[in-house]
């Protein structure tokens, strides 16, 4: 039994393509402990996002193993991995990916509803999260009525809705200007300080600098 939220050992990922197999990850080992804040940097196409998908229980490795909270992900059914993504992992993306037909509050409520949180409890939690990301006055706004920074803060609130053990972020400041990106980075610091482990993949050196551990990737491998 370890304190790692997630642990990858000797993980490789090969994508079969018509023109020949593409190896995106080669023998990668990584662990993210409780309360950890890990940043992965590297050039485009080096395998950062692929690693993130494996850590986030979205994809399966071609070889090696990944365990999430001491459970071997390879042995889990899709429904069990889906449950882990819902309740134990929060996702933040470069393009926000809010549901355009739902308001900010409804976007945050959705994963809670799926997790079976009672209506009164999830409304309370949604209010808290909107205050946490300083958007209490934007609860009823649609994503189209929010700025990029506001959408990303709603996305972070949604990711935190079910109190995950790990927050996984893929280029969270990629579509934001420096000032707005810094606000999002500040918010990540708060989330980390509140005890949630964070794994962020980024080109943003300022954001990476805030992490407690920084890892570099190149050609599908983590640099020593």
């Amino acid at each position, binding site marked *: 039994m370890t304190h790692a939220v997630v642990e990858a050992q000797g993980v490789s990922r090969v994508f079969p393509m018509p023109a020949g197999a593409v190896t995106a990850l080669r023998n990668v080992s990584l662990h993210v402990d409780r309360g950890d804040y890990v940043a992965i940097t590297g050039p485009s196409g080096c395998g950062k996002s692929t690693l993130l998908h494996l850590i986030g229980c979205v994809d399966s490795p071609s070889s090696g193993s990944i365990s999430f909270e001491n459970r071997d992900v390879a042995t889990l059914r899709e429904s069990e991995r889906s449950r882990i993504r819902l309740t134990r992992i929060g*996702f933040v993306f470069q393009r926000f990916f809010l549901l355009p037909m739902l308001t900010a509050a409804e976007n945050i409520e959705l994963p809670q509803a799926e997790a079976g949180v009672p209506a009164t409890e999830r409304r309370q939690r949604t209010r808290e999260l909107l205050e946490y990301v300083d958007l209490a006055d934007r609860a009823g706004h649609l994503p189209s009525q929010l700025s990029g920074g506001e959408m990303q803060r709603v996305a972070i609130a949604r990711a935190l809705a079910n109190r995950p053990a790990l927050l996984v972020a893929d280029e969270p400041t990629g579509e934001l200007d420096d000032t707005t990106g810094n606000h999002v980075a500040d918010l990540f610091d708060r989330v980390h300080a509140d005890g949630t482990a964070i794994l962020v993949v980024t080109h943003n050196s300022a954001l990476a600098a805030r992490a407690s551990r920084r890892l570099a990737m190149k050609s599908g491998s983590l640099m020593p």
Partner: protein
Amino acid sequence: MVLRVTCLGVACCLLFGVNAFPDEPVLPDVLVTRQLAARAHLAVGDVVAFTTDQGGAPATRFRVAGIYEPTPDPMRFTAQRMEARMHLPDLTRMTMDSTDPASAESVDAINLRLVDPAAAQAFQLDVRTRVPGITAYPTARSPDRDPFAVLDRFHVAISIVTVLGGTAFLLALMIIRAEERREIIGLLRLVGISRRSLLAAVLLEGLFIAAIGAVFGIVLALAGQGIVNRIFQARYDTALVFVRVTPSIALRSIVFAVPLGVAAGLAASWTVLGRDVLSLFRR
């Protein structure tokens, strides 16, 4: 004015269509169809004369006691219903051969209504056996000789083709719609919304759309029914109902439409839900 009319199967001629005999003491009553009244400009109380002679004599005078709408007959909906109804003694008197006193007693045909309509065939055989020379036959058409049975089968075939074509069209639309929502479905699955929840949502959505579509179709059919009936009733001057959307037809439409709509929605959604999460984000 002379018009040929059909009167209980006897060819007669209407000679006078006006109140030509106001001082006539007591005349037998006759009922004329709405169409005949309109053609001959008759009104209740008018005196008319009927004869079976093409030449016009001798004629029997009647007083128009009423105007009626003839019972619509789908086998004769193109016929002009120039008809009159009179009491049997009046008809007999009008049609009898004065040189043959027995002619008033002759009977060409008798219509019988059986207590049990299913016994028609047995009754027909019985009459033929007992009274050779009398032709007995049921007026009800057997299904294999009923032209409307053929029409019914034709309608069933058209409806099956329409339903299959509609389902294919709906399926194509649903697949396009599912493809448009591919990224959203991918996102939902990525954040942990289960396939079962998404299928349930699709099921509810499909149920709602199919139910709305079925209700819309029924409303459209009801509106179309009124328009079609009015056009053809005016065209053929008849009260015959050409199209009727019955509760049974409406119920069958819903029974067919809703499951097919839901099945089409589920089949279309499975083309997206069946894929792995990451493929939903790839273009």
